[in-house]
């Protein structure tokens, strides 16, 4: 049944030392359940103690026409016995469930890598849909790789026969069969997946049993195939990790939990106004289940109402939060200006995606930095923070809540489609280690009378909630008189208030950590400066370059606005600066503007994260 184009001999297999890290990509039709397969494989990887990073890559269409190349959904995971920072440049193993999945993914596979294909899907119809004139399994075009081709469809049907499912339902178990095989390949325990299937199909036990049977059959197939030759079992040792309790977490989950934690640390109930948008909706979904933490979620009629309701809630004394992606942030922009003018706390999460306009809804990009820092009418500054990874998003969300409440300002938290969907192991934090920052509402008339736009030492105005006797006041978007908050169009007042709003945000720089060199000694010739989710590939590329003796440091910036006070001096120590970004060079421009440094851009806007090799090449060329 199995037919390998190139059969690795036992001797060849034995020659290969156990790899430190392996990259596996599952690819199939968007209806094949590849994301589910990937998610469960991730769980088993985490339970095996490997470090990992994932990259779900799926089409914008929910169910694109079957068998087409644009309907291919893929899930890549990089896992290993060392620290893993990226989802991996090139897969070692590709599981392709049909010709379209093979066609769109095999090019990324490492030379000599393993391709597993389901021959049951390689009929003339599917080959034609994928644009193959002849079957790639027969024409030698896959000679660069090891190919394991067998009829997964038939094997799945056979394995679930006893459960009397219809053909269509039976074939749906294919992904579990494949997962079973993958679990065998990496010597994984099936029990957690069995438990998950039982709970997922609690209401349809026959489906649970059928899927478990398929899982077991796939696993058994691996054992048998190993005896006959081509399959090989790998054992990846557990990665070094600090002792403690771990779980996997996606960016969407981490931001939600961070917001809840931030609101609790501020001692405030949270109000979340959202509107469905890819890839930000996950936050709305997570938070809507956390009522016991004082969270009210509101699915508004549009993005504008989502942010406005959050502003209204902040005015009334809750922590207002809204979230979206670039196009939705554009719609919220006028209201964000109102929050700046009325100086109310507000957290805005932007899960960036490919733009402009609708752009690439399911692909990642970092091209909303200008929008975050500059994108409003008037002189309208606000703090901007960027998360570097799913786990880091937790701390960034807490930081956003802290700045918003302490400085009475909207705060923009930037994440992206990659962080939102990707998963990584996360050491469960000890919440007692986070210093609370409880909000004190003004509840009495201060000496000298109540002034809605009085200033504290941080230039923040008091937060006086409706319902408080004695503190009646009116706020709005029209320019405010310094102190009283009354309408005031006087030229000198507008100048003074513009200066005040700017000084307040600039002053935040004194309340954030100084910039450190993320990797390196600060003595390198070249600084690779990054922000957001490019952290992983930059870090790996710099580490490898340093191992080869190159004079290069990694500087990762979390606080995009205001920037850390020492960043300029730090950057001026380097001869060269390159800024890899998934945009056309936005942060590079900010750095040039702020520090007059010769920062050079390494831009990538393909909707795909950077590969380590791309950054490695840029380091090489910058130092040559």
């Amino acid at each position, binding site marked *: 049944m199995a037919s390998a184009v190139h059969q690795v001999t036992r001797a060849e297999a034995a020659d290969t030392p156990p790899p430190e890290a392996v990259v596996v990509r599952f690819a199939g039709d968007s209806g094949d359940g590849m994301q589910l397969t990937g998610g469960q494989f991730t769980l088993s990887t985490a339970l095996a103690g490997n470090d990992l990073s994932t990259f779900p890559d799926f089409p914008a269409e929910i169910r694109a026409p079957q068998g087409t190349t644009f309907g291919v959904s893929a899930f890549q995971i990089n896992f290993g016995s060392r620290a893993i920072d990226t989802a991996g440049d090139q897969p070692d193993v590709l599981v392709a469930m049909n010709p379209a999945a093979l066609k769109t993914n095999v090019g990324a596979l490492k030379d000599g890598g393993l391709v597993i294909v389901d021959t049951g899907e390689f009929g003339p119809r599917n080959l034609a849909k994928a644009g193959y004139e002849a079957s790639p399994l027969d024409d030698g075009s896959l000679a660069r790789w090891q190919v394991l081709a067998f009829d997964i469809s038939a094997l799945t049907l056979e394995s679930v026969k006893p459960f009397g499912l219809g053909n269509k339902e039976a074939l749906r178990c294919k992904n579990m069969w494949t997962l079973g095989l993958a679990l065998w390949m990496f010597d994984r325990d099936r029990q957690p997946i069995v438990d998950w299937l039982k709970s997922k199909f609690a209401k349809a036990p026959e489906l649970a049993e059928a899927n478990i049977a398929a899982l077991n059959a796939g696993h058994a197939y691996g054992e048998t195939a190993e005896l006959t030759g081509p399959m090989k079992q790998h054992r990846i040792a557990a990665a070094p990790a600090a002792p403690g309790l771990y779980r996997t977490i996606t960016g969407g989950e981490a931001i939600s939990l961070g917001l809840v934690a931030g609101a609790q640390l501020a001692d405030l109930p949270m109000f979340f106004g959202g509107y469905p948008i890819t890839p930000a909706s996950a936050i709305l979904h997570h938070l809507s289940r956390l009522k016991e933490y004082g969270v009210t979620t509101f699915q508004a009629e549009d993005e504008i109402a989502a942010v406005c309701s959050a502003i209204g809630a902040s005015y*009334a004394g809750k922590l207002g939060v809204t979230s979206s992606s670039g196009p939705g942030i554009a719609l919220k922009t006028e209201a964000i200006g109102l929050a700046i003018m009325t100086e109310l706390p507000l957290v805005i999460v932007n899960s960036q995606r490919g733009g402009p306009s609708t752009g690439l809804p399911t692909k990642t990009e970092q091209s909303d930095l200008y929008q975050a820092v500059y994108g409003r009418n008037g002189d309208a500054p606000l703090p901007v923070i960027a998360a570097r990874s799913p786990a880091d998003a937790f701390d960034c969300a807490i930081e956003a809540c802290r700045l918003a409440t302490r400085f009475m300002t909207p705060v923009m938290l930037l994440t992206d489609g990659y962080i939102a969907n990707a998963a990584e192991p996360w050491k469960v934090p000890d919440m007692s280690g986070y210093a609370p920052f409880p909000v004190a509402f003004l509840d009495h008339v201060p000496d000298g009378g109540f002034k809605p736009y009085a200033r504290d030492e941080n230039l923040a105005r008091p937060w006086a909630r409706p319902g408080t006797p004695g503190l009646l006041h009116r706020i709005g978007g029209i320019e405010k008189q310094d102190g009283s908050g009354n309408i005031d169009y006087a030229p000198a007042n507008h100048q003074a208030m513009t200066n005040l709003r700017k000084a307040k945000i600039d002053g935040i720089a004194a309340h954030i950590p100084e910039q450190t060199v993320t990797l390196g000694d600060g003595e390198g010739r070249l600084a690779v400066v990054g922000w957001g989710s490019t952290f992983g590939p930059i870090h790996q590329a710099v580490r490898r370059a340093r191992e080869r003796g190159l004079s290069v440091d990694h500087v990762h910036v979390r606080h995009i606005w205001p920037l850390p006070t020492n960043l300029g001096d730090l950057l001026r120590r380097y001869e060269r600066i390159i800024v890899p970004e998934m945009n056309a060079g936005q942060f590079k421009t900010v750095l040039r503007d702020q520090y007059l440094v010769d920062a050079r851009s390494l831009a990538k806007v393909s909707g795909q994260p950077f590969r380590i090799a791309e950054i490695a090449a840029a380091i090489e060329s910058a130092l040559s």
Partner: protein
Amino acid sequence: MNEMTSVKTTVKDWETDQEVRWCPGCGDYAILKAVQRTLPDIGARPENTVFVSGIGCSSRFPYYMATYGFHTIHGRAPAIATGVKLANPDLDVWVITGDGDALSIGGNHTMHLLRRNLDCQILLFNNEIYGLTKGQYSPTSRVGTRSPSTPYGSVDRPASPCSFALGSGARFVARGIDVHKNLPSVLKAAYYHKGASFIEIFQNCIVYNDDVFAPFTAKANAAAGQVWLEDGQPMLFAGGTRGLALDPKALRLEMVDVVDGDWQAAGVIVHDQTNKGIAQMLIDMDNSAGFPVALGVIFNHPRPSYEREVVAQNEAAAKGKAPDLQKLVAQGQTWMVDKEPRAE
């Protein structure tokens, strides 16, 4: 409205020290007074009262009320008010808006606030013109309105605010006139209705659209041009000499003469404020075709309000679950690393 204990206040207690900046003779002054007169009557508490407005002449209103106030951005007052009320359902929330603010740029939010039935009062000052931007025609302007942006007359048909509200699912729809003595009683009824209360107030813009409502508001036209509705009372106008009857075959209202006060004989119908079908017909009566304009509470049929249901659901979902942040961050499948497997 909310169930906090009421307090005794006077009109003075609701006035601010801010200079009112509407044009002399603007209908807004009369509405401001009517509101300031209503609030003491209903025992409202200033610190518990929030006025939320959008942009336009009417939206300056909050600055003149000695309450909490939020002058927001164009069209978005309903959305901000929704956040305020959801965050603190004990507040009395009033939304002040205009025809352009509520039905043009903010039409979407108005519709959704009404269908959700958020407990608040929406006062829509309808002057059928954009005043603050100097006189362009608005979504309620009649066909043929000449304005700086329509020098040859407007071509598009106007929206009917009350019809829009009823169609959006509003459970309370009423009308008033800026200078009419009945306005406070309409405001009161709106306040006592739990849920979204929509009130269209015909407001004269003395500068850009003067006397546009004169065909039914001018002294000489008022009796025949206005029918003030009262629940359980016959729909009479013109000093009781005329009334509204229902033509059951054509399913439409018709005007009938009432002789010697015998409205029953004339077939005049009694106002049932919970009858949505009749409410629609009342709203649709065409003044230019000789019908009176329906005023007062046209429709009032309460249903549970949105924020109460949200609070109830939140409470039910949270019941029996103790918030534990440490547990929350450790949810899902976890694993323990006892010691470092190997040094890096």
